[in-house]
């Protein structure tokens, strides 16, 4: 998951409420506070609906755009076993996109509208997928670190207040942990291999480490939506808390792999019981979020082209369905 961009301010203000809405709203707040699920048919504040559509559709878009960097290697996977694992992973990510679009549609926005928002650049997807996959080790690092960061972000959402989202997340998280283990296993095999393979892994880790830390979003002091989202139970841990948990978990895994995380300031802080780490380059983060990453234009263009190239297919399917309907009426 890729909650990062939900913390980017959009300047929304809560609309004024009527008295009836005030009662419903108090009831809604109470249910959120108790940890009850809100379902599609239930009353919910407009702002809650909008925030969720934005967050869930961003996540869905990320799953779909995320198929591109991995698809880049599917035809070149170096063994049939790894090719099968990668194909299965990409298939899972597409499935995640489907469940998430379906969850967002329960809030009254159609998949076509969401896709249109992606293609026009209004909707975001996770910036991590604007980074390239020049080597096979990138496939392992995406599984290990990118899916790993996704899990950190997403596990708390399995208990989020919106029922359809929480249920989608439970299924997705199960598969993401599988992806993370497979990514780790891919890298582990390479680290047991030749000098060239080990160097390929280290080089990929060097490129991905900092962008992955950025996946947790801006530091809490610069993050706007967090308080309201926490109250609504659609974000249960802060960006900094999640990032810290991630770093602490990965340090040990990196040791097992035998790779070095490219941060000279990374060290255990016994007093805090956590690892300290170096300063993140937030300028790079904002550059990529604002469209100036290595592959922003290419990724979006690939999605738009797939959609445009497929227009005749979708039109034909619709035309055929209409013909069938007409025929069955006539018969």
């Amino acid at each position, binding site marked *: 998951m890729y909650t990062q961009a939900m913390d980017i301010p959009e300047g929304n203000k809560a609309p004024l409420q009527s008295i009836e809405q005030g009662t419903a709203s108090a009831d809604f707040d109470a249910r959120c506070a108790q940890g009850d699920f809100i379902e599609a048919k239930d009353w919910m504040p407009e702002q809650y609906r909008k925030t969720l559509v934005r967050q869930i559709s961003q996540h869905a878009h990320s799953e779909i755009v995320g198929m591109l960097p991995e698809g880049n290697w599917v*035809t070149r996977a170096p063994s049939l076993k790894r090719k099968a694992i990668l194909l299965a992973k990409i298939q899972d990510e597409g499935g995640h*996109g489907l469940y998430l679009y379906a969850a967002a549609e329960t809030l009254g926005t159609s998949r076509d509208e969401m896709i249109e928002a992606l293609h026009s650049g209004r909707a975001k997807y996770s910036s991590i997928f604007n980074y390239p996959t020049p080597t096979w080790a990138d496939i392992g690092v995406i599984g290990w670190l990118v899916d790993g960061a996704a899990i950190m972000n997403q596990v708390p959402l399995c208990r989020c207040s919106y029922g359809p989202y929480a249920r989608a997340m439970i299924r997705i998280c199960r598969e993401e942990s599988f992806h993370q283990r497979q990514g780790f296993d891919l890298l582990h095999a390479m680290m047991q291999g030749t000098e060239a393979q080990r160097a390929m892994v280290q080089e990929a880790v060097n490129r991905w480490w900092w962008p992955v830390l950025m996946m947790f979003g801006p530091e809490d002091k610069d993050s706007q939506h967090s308080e309201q989202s926490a109250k609504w139970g659609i974000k249960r841990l802060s960006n900094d808390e999640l990032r810290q948990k991630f770093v602490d978990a990965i340090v040990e895994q990196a040791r097992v792999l035998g790779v070095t995380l490219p941060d000279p300031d990374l060290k255990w802080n016994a007093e805090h019981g956590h690892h300290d780490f170096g300063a993140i380059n937030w300028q790079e983060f904002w550059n990529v979020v604002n469209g100036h990453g290595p592959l922003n234009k290419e990724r979006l263009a690939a999605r738009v082209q797939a959609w445009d190239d497929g227009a005749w297919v979708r039109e034909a399917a619709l035309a055929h369905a209409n013909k069938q309907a007409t025929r069955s009426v006539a018969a």
Partner: protein
Amino acid sequence: MNTPAATHESTIDLKPLGPQHAAWVLRLADGSLVLSQRLSEWCGHGPVLEEDIAFTNIALDLLGQARLLYSHAGALEGQGRDEDAFAYWRDESEFRNPTLVELPNGDFGQSVLRAWAYVSWQCLVWGTLAKSRDTALAAIGAKSVKESRYHQEHLGNWVVRLGDGTEESHRRMQTALDYLWPYTSELFHLDAVETAAMDTGLAPGLDRIAEIWTANTNATLHSATLTVPAPTPFLATGRQGRHSEAMGYLLSEMQALARAHPGARW
């Protein structure tokens, strides 16, 4: 679906049914692998998310078939070649897939039509293997026939939808059909390897599948309002190891990384 190809028969002492046995299995294996490779090029670029997933799924099933068949061929051969030795370390002339499956994808319609033609053929071949004297191969066939039937149905539905959709989709499908159909005769060409497969009881009844395939595909093409092209004298030669121009590119892409690291394990 990530189960590694089982070396299920490694403990059985395999006796090849004649000198062409492994060669016939390799034709099947190469057909599955090369079509899988082509379908996987669609990853992330499908016309609608559901089809992106479906194509990936079919590619994965075909890859699974290829892995089982390669392991089996390796066991028959008895020279210690595993699935990756076959996929990554043979040169173009050693690949024995029919040319049909290696042709470039073209548009979505052409990709659908080609895959459908091949999986429809596969369904029938798996069926003949039920009576094979090679029981390990019969087991692979029994597993694969369920997958191929699903592929045939899914892709066949698209053939009908696109053929009988809009004017544009009809035109595209007819063009693709006219292009692809001459390559299908290779699937039924009874050369020495195919004849040996029948004669040794490896694939009994292989000579009868052309008729059934033609009847089945014609019925679907008829529903799709497409015109079945008249037979041509052209005979493709991929199964003899003489491939189209597209094959070299497909293999150099597929094999490049593995070959850049000889001896490496992944």
